[in-house]
């Protein structure tokens, strides 16, 4: 590793190079007071430089017993970790299916409890898929035309993450970052109510033998575990994502139990404020990718799922219009997983556009008064016959 890659200020770097220290190895044998004298900096600054240099060097030396590169995990260990990860169901069994069980934690996922039988199905499928060690989705981008149900999906996820462990959920809290003002509390209340009703039905159906353990959750409790941030400009958006680090660590310290940690961050929608106002396109791309990296960082450190909702625009190619996610290709590259929501006739479909591990597949879903559910198209066909 060369000097110019060290995270030190430009003037310090300049002094190092002009003094003849071009590689890390040259710094290994010098003492801080000598360095201070040669570079004409203070001793504490010199010590700092040496500390940074040794830290960078340490990550490169091979270690016989431990991992070859510090901070990396062997693929086998990762598989083991992924298998024990839990999923957040989207409440539509078809959608869960193509997602490999639901939205996983520790990844950023961009994009409900349906009727009784489907609840059972999705829980069973969750168990099956984890046995195969499906790779977890950390970072997911869900894009769609206006009115397709992105906000509904976001609210459904924020409610579903709170499903207790006994019912196959994560029992965690949610952070909902609203940039457009489309979060309706009454709707969240409706979805929360429906979720609790489905849970009690499931309870009654499956646990007939056991003691009747009533669901003690109220819709108000679910609403209480959704942290809502309203953002009015891109500066606030950047500031908030920087601040989330501190917010999450504070929250983690206060409540030690697994129950009350934040498990998902939903951003609705991530690119709204960046579409107007920014004159410098290159800067916009840099800021956005910086933001995406920070979110990925948060996802890994706190083991949460990050779901980003995005708008779509039409791209003019030759003579046709093509729907693409807003803000161009560069932003699309930063997200590892992408789901596109679209209309097909009268039905809503979700299509996995890009994923490192999941197959491209599409599933139909519908938005009902109770939230996101399986689309009932099969029932329609039977009725027509």
């Amino acid at each position, binding site marked *: 590793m060369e000097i110019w890659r060290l995270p030190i200020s430009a003037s310090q770097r300049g002094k190092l190079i002009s003094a003849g220290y071009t590689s890390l190895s040259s710094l290994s044998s010098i003492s801080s007071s000598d360095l201070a004298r040669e570079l004409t900096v203070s001793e504490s600054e010199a010590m700092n430089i040496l500390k940074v240099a040794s830290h960078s060097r340490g990550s490169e030396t091979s270690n016989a017993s431990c991992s070859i590169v510090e901070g990396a995990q062997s693929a086998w260990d990762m598989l083991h970790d992924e298998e024990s990860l839990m999923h957040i169901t989207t409440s539509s069994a078809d959608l869960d299916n193509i997602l490999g069980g639901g939205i996983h934690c520790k990844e950023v996922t961009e994009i409900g409890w349906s009727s009784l039988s489907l609840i059972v199905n999705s829980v069973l499928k969750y168990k099956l898929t984890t046995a195969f060690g499906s790779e977890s989705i950390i970072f997911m981008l869900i894009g769609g035309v206006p009115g397709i149900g992105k906000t509904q999906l976001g609210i459904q996820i924020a409610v579903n993450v709170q499903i207790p462990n006994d019912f196959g959920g994560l029992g965690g809290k949610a952070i909902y970052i609203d940039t457009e003002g489309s979060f309706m509390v009454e709707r969240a209340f409706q979805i929360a109510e429906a979720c609790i009703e489905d849970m009690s039905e499931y309870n009654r159906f499956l646990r007939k033998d056991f003691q009747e353990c009533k669901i003690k959750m109220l819709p108000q409790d679910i609403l209480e575990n959704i942290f809502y941030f309203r953002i009015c400009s891109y500066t606030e958006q*950047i*500031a*908030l994502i*920087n601040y989330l680090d*501190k917010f999450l660590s504070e929250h983690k310290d206060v409540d030690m139990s697994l129950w009350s940690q934040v498990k998902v961050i939903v951003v609705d929608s991530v690119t709204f404020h960046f579409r107007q106002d920014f004159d410098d396109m290159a800067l916009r791309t840099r*800021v956005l990718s910086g933001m995406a990296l920070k979110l990925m960082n948060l996802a890994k450190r706190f083991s949460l799922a990050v779901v980003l909702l995005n708008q779509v625009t039409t791209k003019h190619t030759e003579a046709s219009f093509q729907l693409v996610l807003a803000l161009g290709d560069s932003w699309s590259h930063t997200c590892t997983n992408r789901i596109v929501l679209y209309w097909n006739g009268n039905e809503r479909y979700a299509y996995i556009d890009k994923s490192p591990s999941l197959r491209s597949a599409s599933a139909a879903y519908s938005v009902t008064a109770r939230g996101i559910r399986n689309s009932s198209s099969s029932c329609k066909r039977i009725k027509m016959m």
Partner: protein
Amino acid sequence: MANKLISEIPLPKSIANVFSARNISTAKDALSLTEFELMELLDVGLTEVRSALSQISEIVAPPYQTALSLMEQRFQNEHLGGHFPTGLKGLDAALCGGIPFGVLTELVGPAGIGKTQFCLKLSLLASMPTNYGGLDGRVIYIDVESKFSSRRLLEIGLRSFPEIFQMKEMAQEMAGRILVLRPTSLAEFTLSLEQIKVSLLQNQVKMLVIDSMAALVSGEHEQGARRQQTLSWPISFIK
């Protein structure tokens, strides 16, 4: 919040001086650059940049609310539970009480279906006192197509609320609460938005009606993408 001055944020003196020396005066400027760019610009180390950014971010970031407190707030503070009932039972039920406050609601429809009539009725409702289901506030009506007819408004008032509108002073008072603006171009409209923003807070304006957005743009001669661009700023401003 975005334009908060760096000087007002409690940063360590040395960093604050460097920020001002490099002409980064608002939080917006500081947060628009990436960490490395700031390092290059300010000539300080990564840890200092990071800690300065985290302090700035903490202050600029909006506070959080749980969804529950949001709902409670709606019911307690905001009049009528955060929604403005339109008087159409089916619509109000579907909208969870009525047209929500604090968001943009768009009325869409083919020509002749009654959009302007709807707007007139809503403006009237908004100006009515609360015991008649109104908001007891002012309405700013931006009439691009010159469709606003005060005679029709009074007719609606007479038929719907005869007890009030038959008295001339009351009718005058109610109608007086509806202020009509007639911008002739998008540029004029955009300019007047700034003015409206100021007067919104001062004059108890409870509703803003724009009739119609499409007319604003179709009057312009620019084509394609530029049209969308010119509209997007006013829209986000209104939000």
